[in-house]
């Protein structure tokens, strides 16, 4: 099930919220666990067993990863077992086709493709379970002896299929003792409405432009149109992904949880380094804490640090999908991060703001150009077109039409990418608190919810982007 669907909004969610608020406290986790399994099984009935197996693996290895109780050796074995289990799961279900294809072409073999359908959310829940066991081993959290509680953590439906990657240590106490109240619920509603509108109206809307330009024949394109499509993808992926995170955080609040932020206006960054501090924060901090730092981070000399950065960013890219373009996308950012760290940092600090904004955006947009095309021929053709090597005119009538049709939406997307709207809200809240809190905010939320429902039910384009993750 996905959040931006009629079934979720008008069947699943109301039923789950109603029951959740009715059942006694001690059964709330059990109910959430069952509801989450249902949420997952609705779209992936075959793989719900895999997730239950994964929870069981995390539960057992987590128990034994307790150094104090079982000693360092046993705990280490348990942790290694958890690592092997989760990595093996990912390799098998996510990457086996990729490896077979590449082995076949490399050694001219004819191995049959496993052709497994990727279990949705596997990359998210594997990372969550893994972080839990490692944190137990590190002594940062106590092992969870209640299977239901751990199951609730791993399967929790708000963040199950598209993140954020919530750490066990961040919600450990909330899993046992969390409170729900009207103020928390209302702030959850606000957040959910914003996320839903970002996804259903803005992300889906601008993706239509990307699709239209992508599907146009080469003869109808121009250099301008190709850049327009790059801009469309850039906005689409941010509004889609951060919209999902907003919805997850909002739903979490409605259920009494507080998740950490996952996006912080990434497109206002002035460097690649800054971009990765603001983009998909839960993923980059996961890689920092469980890969980069264990590899030695920056403590073993510059050469080793560069190697570590490259490993982390290769993995980050590859995490996004079993294809070379995602790996290339990661490596691209790894190289740029190293360049910034050791060569460009001082220059960037001195340059005027506008220049560094343009620099960072250019790098980001080019990055999405690598990310968007799994087919290497299409990827190459797109870059040729972008840089005027595809034999396209600079501009044509169709490009004007696309621009005119989508200009107001592009303006909204630009404004929505900055903190301006949040700041405006804060200002209104200070100047006319009563009006803002009692009328403006609820009216805005009502409008966003209704409009989202209208867009979703009208059969508008509604892709799910994370089936590869």
């Amino acid at each position, binding site marked *: *099930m996905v959040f931006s*669907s*009629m*079934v979720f*909004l*008008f*069947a699943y*969610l*109301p039923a789950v919220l109603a029951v959740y608020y009715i059942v006694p406290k001690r059964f709330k986790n059990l109910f959430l666990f069952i509801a989450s399994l249902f949420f997952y099984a*609705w*779209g*992936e*009935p*075959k793989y719900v067993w895999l997730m239950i197996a994964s929870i069981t693996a995390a539960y057992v290895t987590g128990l034994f990863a307790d150094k104090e109780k079982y000693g360092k050796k046993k705990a280490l074995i348990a942790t290694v077992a958890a690592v092997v289990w989760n990595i093996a799961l990912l390799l098998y279900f996510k990457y086996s086709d990729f490896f077979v294809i590449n082995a076949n072409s490399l050694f001219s073999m004819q191995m049959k493709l496993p052709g497994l359908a990727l279990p949705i959310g596997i990359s998210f829940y594997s990372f969550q379970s893994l972080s839990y066991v490692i944190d137990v081993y590190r002594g940062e959290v106590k092992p969870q002896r209640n299977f239901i509680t751990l199951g609730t953590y791993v399967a929790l439906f708000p963040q199950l299929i598209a993140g954020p990657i919530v750490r066990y240590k961040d919600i450990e106490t909330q899993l046992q003792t969390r409170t729900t109240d*009207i*103020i928390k*619920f*209302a*702030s959850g*509603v*606000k957040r*959910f*409405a914003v996320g839903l509108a970002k996804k259903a109206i803005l992300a889906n*809307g601008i993706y239509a432009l990307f699709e239209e330009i992508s599907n146009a024949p080469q003869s109808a394109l121009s250099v301008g149109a190709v850049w327009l499509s790059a801009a469309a993808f850039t906005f689409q992926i941010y509004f889609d992904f951060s919209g999902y995170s907003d919805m997850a955080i909002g739903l979490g609040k409605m259920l009494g949880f507080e998740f950490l932020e996952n996006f912080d206006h990434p497109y206002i960054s002035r460097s690649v380094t800054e971009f990765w501090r603001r983009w998909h924060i839960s993923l980059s901090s996961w890689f920092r804490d469980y890969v980069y730092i264990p590899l030695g981070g920056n403590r073993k000399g510059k050469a080793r640090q560069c190697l570590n950065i490259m490993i982390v960013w290769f993995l980050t890219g590859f995490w996004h999908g079993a294809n070379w373009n995602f790996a290339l996308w990661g490596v691209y950012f790894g190289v740029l991060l190293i360049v910034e760290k050791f060569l460009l940092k001082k220059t960037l600090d001195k340059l005027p703001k506008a220049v560094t904004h343009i620099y960072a955006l250019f790098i980001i947009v080019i990055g999405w150009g690598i990310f968007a095309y799994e087919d290497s021929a299409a990827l190459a053709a797109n870059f040729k077109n972008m840089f005027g090597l595809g034999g396209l005119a600079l501009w044509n*009538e*169709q490009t*004007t*039409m696309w*621009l*005119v*049709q*989508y*200009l*107001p*939406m592009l303006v*909204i997307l630009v404004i929505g990418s900055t903190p301006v709207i949040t700041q405006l809200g804060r200002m209104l809240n200070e100047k006319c*608190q*009563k009006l803002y*809190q*009692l009328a403006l*905010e*609820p009216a805005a*939320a*009502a409008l966003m*919810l*209704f*409009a989202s*429902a*209208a*867009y*979703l*039910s*009208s*059969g*508008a384009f509604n892709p799910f982007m994370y089936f590869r993750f």
Partner: protein
Amino acid sequence: MDNDIKRSKAAALIMSAVFISFTALFTLGTFFSKDREFSEMENRPLKTKPELSGKEILSGELDDEFEEYMSDQIFLKDLMMSFKTSCDYFSGKTFQNGVYFGKDGYLLQRFDLDEQNLTKNISYINGFVQDLDIPADMILAPTSVCVNADKLPAAAVTDDQRKAAGIIRSQLSEKVTLFDAYDTLSDIQKNDGIQAYFRTDHHWTASGARAVCDRWLISAGLAPTSSAFKYKQGWDFYGTLYSKAPAGFVKPDGFGYFENDAIDCEVNYVNEKSVKYSLFDESFLEKKDKYAMYFGGNFAQMKITTSADSGKKLLVLKDSYANSLIPCLIEQFSEIYVIDLRYFHFDKVSDVIEQNGIDRLLMVYNIDFINEDKNFIWLE
């Protein structure tokens, strides 16, 4: 301080109430309202309740099926559809679902020239008329986007139907006398103030069709329609283009048709084996798709026998534009055979001509149709 807490509590109450009423409205509304089988507004069948079977539950197909079902049957569906279309329009999207929102309330379907298909279709027609020994005519109608090009919104892109007409003119066999309806239609619209096309439908109006028919009749040496044709009107009409882009602010067309009481007609629906004694099915005037009142829609083969005493027998090969034009031919022809190649796939057109002693062939097509349709192959 106490006031602040009270206020934020009140604000939270309002916000929660918004959310609860929103979900309750659509959840309860959807589950308690009766399912619709057809959407008049969108002019398409709606998805009805999926059946639960073990196989579907396990395959995960239920997800898609239920989603489709719920979005089709959602409470206030038409209102939301129209709200969405309007929002898109006011955000600058004057082009939606292949349709432009033009000036003066005109919805205009974009024309994309497919030269290859067009040429192929003409060659099928040429091959067909090669061995024909009766006179053949073609009435070629531009669509609204061509005649009403001045009503297109800013920066609109559409291919030139005059260019397509030129291609047809240059490639069409000399055996076919081409009647290009463009001049007539733009003439009556500009000079006589007659609305030649519906604003919300992709067809021409009854007046547009009659004017074209008259000028063709004259050019073919026949008499134009007489004053026995009376105009009947008074129905609001939201056509097919509205169904594609149903915005709340779109005003309906007025629907009307010409009826001639002096001539009796019998329509024989050949494949359906049924007979009617009128060219019109008035029941459609009470439904959304009013243009289907001509003959009740499109059929593979019809034989119209009229009380006209000319003894002339005409075969019409046609698309739906012809449906409103054919009633204007009943004074001149005693028998009118009508074939729609989209549905006429099992017999040969040349057999129909031979077996019935037909003495004239008329093709009535709009340019968009010849450009796009894939059924001319059935002429072979």
